[in-house]
């Protein structure tokens, strides 16, 4: 069974939503920081290079201007040491003024000038190794570069990045190298601003994630709750349904560790020490429905549900399981308290309800079972309460508590239901035979086969114990074939011993729904070389819902095949007369209830004699069931019934005993 728990709150959904939002925010923040950092760094380098360009050009221009002035005075070729020194001082002075003044202070600087009248290298805070590395790297990259006057770039030596610029024009080459400050500055800004911005963006994203997730979660949860409610509640009365009950019981009476795993929010039940389960069935619901229409029926159900709910304590749960049946689960309630509640429930259901200006009181039967004294599991509790309810309904006593000593002991029934498989496969069900005799002389004219279950632990069980189990278990057809085959096999054995007594078996209308039953029977008869006329089918009328025309046509087929037919328990069923008018039966078996006390009850005598009179024109033989006294035999003979069976003649007996009777051709009763 699919549990509605699947619809319960999924906490991980919300967690996932929040995580997704946060991861998204984090990724956006990272991308944003990285891109901004790179952008700022690139911009910085570009600006620095431009500035370096101007500086290098300034120094270069100074040298050129100086040369031009000099050309006017002397020739270029005569460069004196004095002049060279003067130029060097001039350039050094310029560098000092530009780079090392009070306003700006350059950390690292390397200037190299090569020309016809000046070769100068100024280095500030540069180590010789750094200069060496730089010049080697530069000369390498210069070779690879296309020849152009302005060459520049960024070089990394160790941890420090340097920007360099070369101006190479008009005899002079000026190389200027400085540390790139932009990257450090950028990093500093990033630390200060971007990080804080990211924190704030992250905070906003978290805020957004929480709100969004709770909003979405709420929407999904609302839908889920609605679905769960639909799945676990009855739409008419709004009460919880059987599905809800299953979960409620599972949580209430299973141990705590199991139920802890997925506990639905709405079921606030904890394992209980004891409790009572009530089954309530409205007695006249169907009549109300039929007489006043479904709307009235619905109104009745709603009113009853309302009234029942009003008298229940909050801890007790009212459940509508379908139709006109309600279940109440009352935790922590003793059997004694339950009796009071049951009586109260009956009174409440008996209060009249106004429908279409009619006062209707539907009445109800209540049955209950107690946990844990009656059963430890939910299913058994319901079955037992149900059985108690049926008992109450039959006795018309309002309410009833499940009793372990009642003949239909629930526990045994459950056990038997489980054992039924073995019963059929291991042939534990055997046939007993009760003789049918001629009343005048006690001669056996046939036997009726009756099933007995030789249960390995419970001993011999009569059909009362297992026939309804077979019907409920959907094994009617299998069981029918089993009985037919067993009877035919027995007949074959007896035939070899010279016994040719007909054997009657009981079949319910359900058996006749088996479309292959007739061919199965005929094949079995043929296999065992038994004549069809030896077999007789007694139709027990256990269900009135089966279509009588269909049953009649099936039985006609049996009869046409030569198999004899009888109506069992004549007079008690709903459609005995219908059968009689539709079927050509060989025997009518008058029910034991009419034979019992026949000698003192003139009404019963009237019924029996009518049945006998009825049988005569139909050409069928009347057999009286349940004859217990000689007086009954005498009266029956006087009335014109010449066949019968009952304890007066013989009880049902096993194969050995009946064989003895048949072989010796004994007349009954035993004298």
């Amino acid at each position, binding site marked *: 069974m699919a549990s509605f728990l699947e619809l319960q709150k999924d906490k991980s959904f919300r967690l996932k939503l929040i995580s997704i939002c946060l991861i998204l925010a984090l990724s956006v923040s990272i991308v944003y920081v990285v891109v901004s950092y790179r952008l700022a760094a690139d911009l910085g380098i570009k600006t620095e290079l431009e500035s370096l360009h101007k500086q290098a050009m300034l120094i270069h221009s100074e040298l050129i201007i100086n040369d031009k002035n000099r050309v006017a005075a002397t020739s270029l070729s005569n460069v004196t040491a004095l002049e060279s020194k003067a130029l060097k001082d001039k350039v050094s002075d310029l560098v000092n003024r530009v780079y090392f003044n009070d306003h700006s202070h350059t950390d690292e600087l390397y200037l190299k000038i090569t020309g016809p009248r000046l070769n100068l290298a100024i280095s500030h805070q540069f180590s010789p190794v750094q200069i060496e590395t730089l010049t080697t790297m530069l000369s390498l990259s210069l070779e690879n570069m296309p020849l152009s006057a302005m060459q520049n770039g960024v070089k990394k030596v160790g941890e420090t990045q340097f920007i360099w610029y070369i101006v190479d024009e008009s005899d002079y080459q000026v190389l200027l190298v400085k540390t790139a400050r932009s990257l450090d500055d950028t990093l500093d800004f990033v630390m*200060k*601003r971007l990080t*804080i*911005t990211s924190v*704030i963006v992250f*905070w906003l994203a978290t*805020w957004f994630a*929480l*709100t969004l*997730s*709770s909003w979405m979660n*709420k929407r999904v949860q609302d839908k889920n709750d609605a679905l769960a409610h639909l799945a676990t509640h009855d739409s008419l009365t709004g009460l919880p349904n059987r599905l809800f009950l299953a979960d409620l019981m599972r949580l209430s009476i299973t141990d705590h560790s199991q139920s802890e795993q997925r506990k639905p929010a709405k079921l606030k039940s904890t394992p209980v020490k004891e409790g009572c389960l009530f089954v309530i069935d409205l007695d006249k619901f169907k009549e109300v429905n039929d007489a006043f229409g479904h709307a009235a029926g619905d109104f009745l159900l709603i009113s009853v549900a309302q009234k029942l709910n009003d008298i229940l304590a909050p801890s007790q749960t009212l459940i509508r399981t379908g139709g006109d049946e309600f279940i109440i689960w009352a935790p922590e309630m003793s059997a004694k308290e339950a009796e009071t509640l049951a009586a109260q429930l009956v009174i409440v259901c008996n209060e009249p309800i106004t429908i279409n200006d009619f006062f209707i009181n539907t009445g109800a039967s209540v049955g209950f079972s107690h946990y844990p004294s009656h059963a430890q599991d939910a299913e058994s509790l319901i079955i037992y309460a149900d059985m108690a309810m049926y008992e109450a309904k039959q006795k018309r006593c309002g309410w009833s508590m499940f009793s372990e000593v009642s003949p239909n002991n629930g526990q045994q029934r459950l056990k038997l239901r489980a054992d039924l498989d073995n019963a059929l496969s291991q042939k534990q069900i055997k046939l007993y035979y009760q003789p049918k005799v001629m009343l005048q002389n006690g001669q056996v004219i046939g036997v009726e086969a009756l099933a007995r279950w030789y249960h390995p632990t419970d001993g011999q069980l009569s059909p009362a114990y297992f026939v309804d189990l077979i019907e409920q278990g959907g094994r009617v057809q299998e069981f029918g074939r089993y009985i037919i085959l067993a009877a035919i096999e027995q007949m074959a054995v007896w035939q070899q011993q010279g016994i040719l007594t007909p054997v009657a078996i009981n079949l319910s209308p359900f058996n006749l729904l088996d479309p292959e039953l007739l061919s199965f029977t005929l094949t079995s008869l043929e296999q065992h070389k038994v004549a069809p006329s030896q077999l007789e089918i007694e139709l027990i009328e256990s269900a009135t819902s089966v279509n009588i025309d269909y049953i009649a046509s099936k039985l006609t087929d049996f009869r046409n095949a030569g198999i004899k037919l009888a109506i069992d328990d004549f007079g008690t069923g709903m459609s005995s007369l219908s059968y009689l008018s539709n079927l050509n039966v060989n025997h009518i078996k008058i029910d034991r209830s009419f034979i019992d006390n026949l000698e003192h009850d003139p009404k019963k005598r009237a019924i029996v004699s009518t049945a006998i009179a009825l049988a005569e024109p139909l050409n069928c033989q009347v057999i009286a069931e349940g004859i217990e006294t000689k007086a009954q035999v005498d009266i029956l003979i006087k009335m014109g019934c010449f066949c019968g069976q009952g304890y007066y003649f013989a009880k049902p007996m096993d194969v050995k005993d009946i064989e003895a009777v048949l072989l010796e051709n004994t007349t009954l009763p035993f004298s």
Partner: protein
Amino acid sequence: MKKNLHPIDRSIRGIIGLLFTGFALFNGAYLEEPVLEVLIGVFGVLNLISLFFGWCPVYHLAGINTSDNKK
């Protein structure tokens, strides 16, 4: 205004609130960015509100409750 913060939650917010508000007011020329200063100020003040009232507007909207007395 119903409280929805656990004392621990509340005190953490208090510390964050004080730090951020203080930073926004007294960072001097460190940030040089008014937009950021305002944002940090708002963030800090919101946290301080949470400290004083034991109530967080976002928790309220999101239906989160970290306080002990849920019922």
